[in-house]
């Protein structure tokens, strides 16, 4: 026997009105949260674009800064852009091979206990704050030798390593075992199987992971403050000295009271943001493509 009144309205449920109101409030709050997130992103991008575009000119990319200039001589942040290119490239060259090798070892060779342990260590490395990495590299390379672009690259490589490793491991795990077994069944040795059969399948995923890692560290400031910040104003491609980088330049300009400096900071931020957005979107597109290629979905 039902406890509901079946007449006159069989669908009348006591208390439903209040519960539905609560439901509607909650749905509204969820909707509001999404709006806040999109709104914040919109405001930030809008600010950067609005303030950065006017100062974004050819000079910014090609001329060096002139400190304490009271005239309106054309100046820019060429040294920072070049420095970032050099340091990030070197960091990628350092982190990529090591990251891939670690992933290969963990996924293809390591016994479960070692795999768990080293994965945990990679996660720990990932969790070390960037500023502590800066202190570390400072103690390791800068003390006694002075700052350098190499030290900066090494610091960024430490940040990139766990990202590259993790994404390579994920894509290695996606390669079907049947492929490995087919190769081994033909008598091809393990090392050849791994390098010639498995690895080529993962290139898309590795590129994606690397692009994402590059996007992450291109904007990294904290470690570079310690190891590559005492710089001159001249553009240099030599990593043996400290090199200026875009994030450090933005940081320093943001602390300055001069509005012209602020304008250049916004412009540099705009370039940096565009680069990072472009890299992230490419990575996402690449990831979808390589996932579809391997798993056929």
């Amino acid at each position, binding site marked *: *026997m*039902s*406890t*509901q009144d*079946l*007449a006159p*309205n*069989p*669908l*009348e*449920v*006591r*208390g*439903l009105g209040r*519960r*539905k109101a609560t439901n509607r409030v909650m749905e509204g709050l969820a909707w509001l949260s999404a709006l806040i997130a999109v709104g914040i992103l919109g405001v930030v991008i809008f600010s950067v674009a609005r303030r950065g575009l006017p100062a974004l000119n050819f000079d910014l990319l090609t001329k060096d800064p002139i400190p304490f200039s009271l005239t309106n001589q054309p100046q820019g942040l060429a040294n920072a852009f070049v420095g970032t290119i050099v340091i990030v490239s070197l960091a990628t060259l350092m982190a990529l091979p090591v990251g891939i090798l670690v992933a290969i070892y963990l996924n293809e060779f390591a016994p479960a206990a070692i795999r768990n342990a080293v994965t945990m260590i990679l996660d720990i490395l990932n969790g070390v704050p960037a500023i502590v990495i800066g202190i570390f590299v400072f103690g390791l390379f800068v003390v006694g030798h002075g700052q350098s672009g190499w030290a900066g690259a090494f610091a960024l490589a430490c940040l990139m390593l766990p990202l590259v490793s993790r994404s390579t491991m994920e894509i290695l795990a996606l390669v079907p075992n049947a492929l490995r077994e087919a190769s081994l069944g033909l008598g091809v040795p393990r090392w050849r199987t791994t390098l010639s059969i498995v690895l080529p399948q993962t290139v898309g995923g590795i590129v994606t992971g690397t692009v994402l890692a590059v996007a992450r560290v291109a904007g990294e400031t904290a470690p570079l403050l310690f190891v590559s910040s005492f710089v001159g104003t001249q553009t240099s491609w030599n990593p043996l000295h400290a090199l200026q980088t875009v994030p450090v330049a933005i940081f320093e300009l943001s602390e300055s009271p001069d509005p012209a400096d602020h304008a250049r900071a916004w412009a540099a931020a705009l370039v940096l943001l565009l680069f990072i957005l472009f890299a992230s979107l490419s990575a996402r597109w690449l990831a979808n493509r390589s996932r579809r290629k391997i798993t056929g979905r």
Partner: protein
Amino acid sequence: MSTTIEPTLRVETRRQPMPPRERLEQIFDIQGLDAVYGGKPAVKGVTMEVYKNLVTAIIGPSGCGKSTFIRCLNRMNDLIPSFTQTGTIRYHGQDICGSNIDAVAVRRNIGMVFQRPNPFPKSIHDNVAWGMKVLGIKDNMNDRIERALTQAALWDEVKDRLKASALSLSGGQQQRLCIARAIAVEPDVVLMDEPASALDPIATQAIEELMHNLKSEYTFVIVTHNMQQAARVADMTAFFSLEVDTADRHGILVEYAETATIFTHPADKRTEDYVTGRFG
């Protein structure tokens, strides 16, 4: 042209004879129901009534829209984005397909037990209690829980471990827990979508027994691919089948009658072919 056929199914049934038609109360009146997933019709033109305090079985080969049909009865298909339906389903005279009808209210009165047991990852006690709490049934909670579990033929097995996780029960026990959960909130109708298909014969028997015992309090509509089960347990049986025409394949209601009729002298040849095992 109907003939009396030798029942090829010799099954025990505790089914009592049905009360005469005049004394049957209509709960569902379904007219011209078409159910469509993403442009492809699953079932078309269903017209039938469901009567109170009876067990109504829906049988037929797989793919003929039985599950889709039963899910229409409690607006469960609303959860699937590509779903649309036309036609009316009158529940106690009120069309529950109208856009002004709140699906939540519908499901309050028309409960459902699913094909695979799906207890919440909570304790046995909380599984039964949660629905009641949310719906505002707060009095005599423990008595109600005991009653629901007893009616679901599970009380004796779990009364000493109500705090244990529901996931520690066997499949058959979990399904009975799901039944207890559904009847704890005292719905009007209980829909069952192949409730015993994932269970062993002993568990299946327990569930059939349960339906028989609870018929006087609830109305059951059960989808089953097991003809013997329908013969054992149902008062009325609806036979669905596939119709293939130039446009698509979809399910249709072929015949709906008292179970005895369906299994001994069905009116439609297709029904006869199915119940005698000539196909499906």
